[in-house]
């Protein structure tokens, strides 16, 4: 399998970002200021070099046609940047990559979907954006609709779709992209379990058909299942390259070392950004920030939001929904806490606010957990997404809790159920 022709050869790839300019385009005044400072003190511009970030730093590797490569690393390690460079979304700052064949990028499903267009129209539009020709889409159209299981609604505007239908259609289009090289980012992290299974199955198919695949995920099970080889990135550098099992275990060992428990981490955020998560705090009973709670205690998260302007999706706003997905240390999502039932956060006129989520204890078995945080308008807009935004520890019960040992032997959740027993007595 590894003896095919070269599909990708990367030599000393580097990508530099100027911090601050990544999120906001500079305004003309900034540019004038930079120009002035450049003219005044040439060369010795120490403050400028401090604000530079090498998202990729001297990364070299070769990939043969037909290999499936898993890209792993913590958030901000450079995985997404590498995918963006390989799929030509942005240019590298240094080095080069020779890429043989067309590259299809599935960094997100439903890219370019427009809520007012019908399923059929969006299929053609999205297909074209992904690089398919009209003939190609037409020939696969029935297959796409069948895969998405939405044939009755294909001529309905997608804004009337349920989120499940929307995701199925979006994934179906993407899954029928037929390029020599496929670059896939975390698209499987959405939808219900059954749908995820279907997506994984489709990815299996793709990998078996001998195409070259780059796959980024925090789900190590999925990586190990789909990939034969993995690249581990750490702060922009290639930290390991080898068989998937070996690299994954290296990553797990390595991950335990460098963590910042109990502190909000905004690296790797994405979204339209008109509202952002500024901070997440795990609070104790007195409201003070703590990095850990005991199993039996309530988990109280304070999420601090900052709102700059109105939503860009233009549709009537029902409320900004905050979602915290609590995941295991391995990245397996365990539970989603969402304020959608409470109507979300009313945005108009609000500049900043604190949203509090309380999950009643007992919660989880002792261990490390992490949170992926989202802000959005359901089905319409992806406003802010911060993967691995927060990590916290669950400690064993503070006071002796007798049957506790039984509770933690299986599973990750530690819940109390209400039990009843309807007994039928033996006739004496």
């Amino acid at each position, binding site marked *: 399998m590894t003896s095919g022709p070269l599909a990708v050869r990367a030599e000393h790839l580097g990508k530099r970002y100027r911090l601050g300019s990544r999120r906001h*385009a500079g305004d003309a005044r900034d*540019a004038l200021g930079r120009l002035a400072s450049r003219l005044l003190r040439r060369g010795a511009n120490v403050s400028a070099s401090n604000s530079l970030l090498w998202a990729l730093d001297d990364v070299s590797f070769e990939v043969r046609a037909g290999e499936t490569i898993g890209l792993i690393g913590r958030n901000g390690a450079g995985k997404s940047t590498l995918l963006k460079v390989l799929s030509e979304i942005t240019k*590298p700052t240094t080095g080069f990559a020779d890429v043989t064949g067309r590259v299809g990028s599935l960094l997100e499903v439903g890219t370019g979907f427009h809520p007012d*267009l019908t399923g059929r129209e969006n299929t053609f539009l999205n297909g074209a954006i992904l690089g398919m020709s009209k003939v190609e889409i037409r020939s696969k159209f029935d297959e796409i609709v069948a895969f998405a299981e939405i044939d009755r609604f294909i001529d309905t505007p997608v804004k009337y779709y349920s989120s499940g239908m929307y995701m199925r259609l979006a994934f179906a289009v993407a899954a029928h992209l037929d390029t020599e090289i496929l670059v896939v980012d975390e698209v499987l992290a959405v939808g219900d379990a059954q749908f995820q299974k279907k997506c994984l199955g489709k990815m299996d198919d793709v990998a078996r058909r001998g195409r070259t695949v780059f796959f980024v995920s925090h789900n190590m099970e999925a990586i190990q299942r789909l990939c034969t080889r993995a690249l581990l990135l750490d702060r922009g550098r290639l930290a390991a390259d080898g068989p998937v099992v070996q690299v994954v275990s290296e990553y797990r060992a390595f991950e335990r070392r460098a963590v910042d428990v109990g502190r909000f981490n905004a690296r790797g955020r994405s979204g339209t950004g008109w509202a952002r998560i500024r901070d997440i705090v795990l609070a104790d009973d007195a409201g003070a920030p703590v990095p850990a709670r005991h199993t039996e205690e309530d988990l109280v998260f304070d999420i601090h939001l900052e709102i700059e302007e109105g939503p860009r999706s233009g549709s009537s706003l029902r409320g900004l929904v905050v979602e915290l997905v609590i995941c295991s240390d391995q990245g397996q999502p365990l539970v989603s806490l969402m304020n959608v039932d409470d109507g979300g956060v009313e945005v108009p006129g609000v500049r900043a606010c604190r949203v509090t989520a309380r999950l009643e204890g007992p919660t989880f078995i002792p261990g490390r957990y992490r949170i992926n945080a989202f802000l959005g308008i359901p089905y319409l807009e992806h406003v802010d997404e911060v993967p691995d935004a927060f990590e916290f520890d669950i400690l064993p019960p503070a006071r002796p809790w007798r049957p506790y040992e039984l509770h933690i032997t299986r599973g990750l959740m530690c819940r109390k159920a209400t039990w009843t027993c309807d007994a039928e007595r033996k006739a004496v």
Partner: protein
Amino acid sequence: MHVISTRRLESTRRFDWRRVTDVWRYRELLYFLTWRDVKVRYKQAALGAAWAVIQPVMSMVVFTVFFGRLAHMPSDGLPYPLFTLCALVPWTYLSTAVTGGSASLVGQQHVLSKVYFPRILVPLAAIAAPLVDFAIAIAILVAVMAGYQVVPGLAVLWLPFFVALMVATAAATAIGLAALTARYRDVRYVVPYAVQLWLFATPVAYPASIVPERWRVLYGLNPMTGVVEGFRWALIGGQPPGAVTLLSAVTVVLALVGAIVYFRRVEGTVVDVL
């Protein structure tokens, strides 16, 4: 049908033919993006296609009342409403295309940061979509011409040339401003104001003939002067355009080349600043 080729992705400003051939390879996407813009516009707006009619016609009425009736603006001997509508049709196209085009890259940032395709298709689609409105407006113009019993002469054969000049002007401005807006966000506040000023620097409400002779060359640097005067000459028999049109055409070609060069420099890393 499709050949597997190797391409090198690197930071370079060297001219790359692939950039040009890519635009051709993605021509269907240009069609789809344009089609989406048109479709969404007509689906969302309650007035739909009527908007394409109302815009130039209302301007025509306002201009006729204020400039024609009240200010007694000369109109080269033509009926004033027809005189100004004939200029408003290309002008409305230009202002829609420029306003939409300059905001297009920023507006599509979500797509641009997820998928590669030649970035220039985004402003190109934004200037292609208003051509539908333009076609409707032309039909209105023809109806008004019929109302005034004006029949174009042989000069009408030149109309495609002036339409091309109009589209090229929109393309040069939109492509340049789209890249500039992506780099410097405050440009988007300047654009509507600049377009408004441009309207007064263009002979829409008044004839070019009232501009003093010695300023004509400077005046001709505004490509829309050539376009508007050209439309009038080709359709309703205004003054034949002179060397000024040639000057306009040269300006447009230079501006277009400049805009594309600047766009190419920005496009490779545009998603980093969006």
